[in-house]
């Protein structure tokens, strides 16, 4: 009898635990669904042609758009990728193909440390660096790109490292056996075999930094006008546009909030497209390799 009730208690506990686990999943999903739903319903109001074709220059109240911010985001993100992809890729090659001894160990540790740098600290660093060269109060798009590359490089190194490690050693040995020097082996055999994974990793790294706000708020500043030159003057970016639209609402506040949500929606779409694109690409290449 007591054994029976003990068994009942155990099974009741099991059912409660199962219930809690399902509930925790639902609880966690709710805010995320709410966020996507709000962004979609509030963002669509201003997701029109004007949003993509005009800046905020001389706009008070309704109208205007995020053209200046989109140009800034594209230029700054591309510059950041231009800095961090070669450095990150070469570092990964060093760690996988050459790295022995203390320098390699130190690089591994430092890459780990870099992954944990708060984004605002990266912004402060870029500011400190550029203030030293251009004097205090410096603001420019390129400084933002430097800050972002500090956040992006460790992500590129990590993913490229994983991909290079996946290339079977037989490939390298076969190449050496044919008398190919090591650097050509890496360039012509190892990297092509890992290229799909490397491109996927780069796309995911870009999606991580494209929504960064804090460092750009600090070193790229904000402006209402289009600025094509990342080496001179303030440059608006999409995340800062979202923040600024919300935090400094003028008369007719609703139009500012609408613009903020439209910007947020564009950001979400960009990030999801980059992530899904990366997945689709790697799935495509995997299928091609398997054939």
């Amino acid at each position, binding site marked *: 009898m007591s054994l029976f009730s003990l068994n009942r208690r155990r099974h009741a506990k099991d059912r409660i635990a199962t219930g809690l686990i399902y509930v925790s999943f639902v609880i966690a999903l709710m805010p995320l669904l709410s966020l996507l739903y709000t962004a979609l319903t509030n963002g669509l109001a201003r997701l029109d042609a004007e949003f993509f074709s005009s800046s905020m220059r001389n706009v008070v109240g309704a109208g205007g758009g995020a053209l200046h911010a989109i140009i800034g985001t594209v230029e700054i993100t591309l510059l950041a990728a231009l800095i961090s992809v070669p450095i990150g890729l070469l570092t990964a090659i060093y760690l996988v193909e050459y790295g022995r001894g203390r320098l390699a160990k130190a690089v591994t540790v430092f890459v780990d440390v870099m992954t944990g740098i708060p984004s605002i600290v990266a912004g402060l660093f870029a500011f400190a660096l550029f203030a030293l060269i251009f004097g205090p109060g410096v603001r420019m798009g390129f400084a933002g790109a430097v800050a972002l590359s*500090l956040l992006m490089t460790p992500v590129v190194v990590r993913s490229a490292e994983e991909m290079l490690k996946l290339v079977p050693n037989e490939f390298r040995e076969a190449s050496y056996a044919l008398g190919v020097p090591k650097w050509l082996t890496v360039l012509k055999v190892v990297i092509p075999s890992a290229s799909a994974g490397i491109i996927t990793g780069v796309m995911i790294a870009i999606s991580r930094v494209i929504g960064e706000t804090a460092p750009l708020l600090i070193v790229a500043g904000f402006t209402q006008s289009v600025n094509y030159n990342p080496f001179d003057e303030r440059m608006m970016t999409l995340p800062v546009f979202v923040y600024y639209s919300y935090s400094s609402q003028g008369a007719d506040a609703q139009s500012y909030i609408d613009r903020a949500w439209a910007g947020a929606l564009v950001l979400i779409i960009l990030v999801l497209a980059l992530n899904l694109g990366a997945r689709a690409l790697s799935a495509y290449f995997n299928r091609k390799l398997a054939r």
Partner: protein
Amino acid sequence: MKSKSRLGDRVFSGLAKGSGSVILIALMAVAGFLMAQAWPALVADPAELPNATEGFLPYVIPFVFGTAFSALIALLLATPLAIGIGLFISHYAPRKLAQALGYIIDLLAAIPSVVFGLWGIQVLAPAVQPAYVWLSENLGFLPIFAGQVSGTGRTILTVSMVLAIMILPIMSAMAREVFLQTPKLHEEAALALGATKWEMIRMAVLPFGRPGLISAAMLGLGRALGETMAVAMVLSPAAVISFALLTSTNSNTIAANIALNFPEASGLGVNLLIASGLVLFAITLLVNMSARAIVNRRREFSGAN
């Protein structure tokens, strides 16, 4: 049998080695430049510091408190949920569904923080405000729920909820990974002894995953400590140390304080903010390093790999 070194080999390996060194130099430059820019604020006469007439330490300590307090509450909220999600995906959901859910959670990790901030202030804060009123009316005798309830819901508890949601994807992804690595034999042995599924999880899965869970929590903590925009947008800040969760005077965090004040700062004010950023850098470095140490210790003993 050493082959003669070719020019291409030397150039290429030099390039690779150089890039690795660039990373070392960059990180040292971060520490060096921040220190150089922070120094003037540390040695200046406190009377000259804007907003910090009592010196640097009294200025930064409330922010350190706010940073740690909000991040710890976020961790407290997120850890049980992350374990639940990890178990759901690794042991409860059907395999096909689990894979899709894993994808979705990975995607959510990429949503920009400024979007979470916008959502927090526009949707979450008004939604939880009535609950705050209820909490203070019925549990107001507890110090954490005491005080005048904020009318906007922009309190440190709301901020911590947003932070918890933001660190949930990475924490649950890590939890899922360690739970999936539990040796199948341990699980089957527990089940063969007549354990229910939950008992099997408690006896085999959770003990095996504990070091991984601890490091997941530390990484989540590191993220929450450095998170800027969500806090800057949602919190209604004050330079105080306060444990009250529901009032409109909340300790600001270091990162949010920098973001809010940097655009208008000048002169020593800039140095002061950079010095506080250096403190944040040191704190996150400490947290992340201990997380890595835990992961590495586990790797040595687990016999896996």
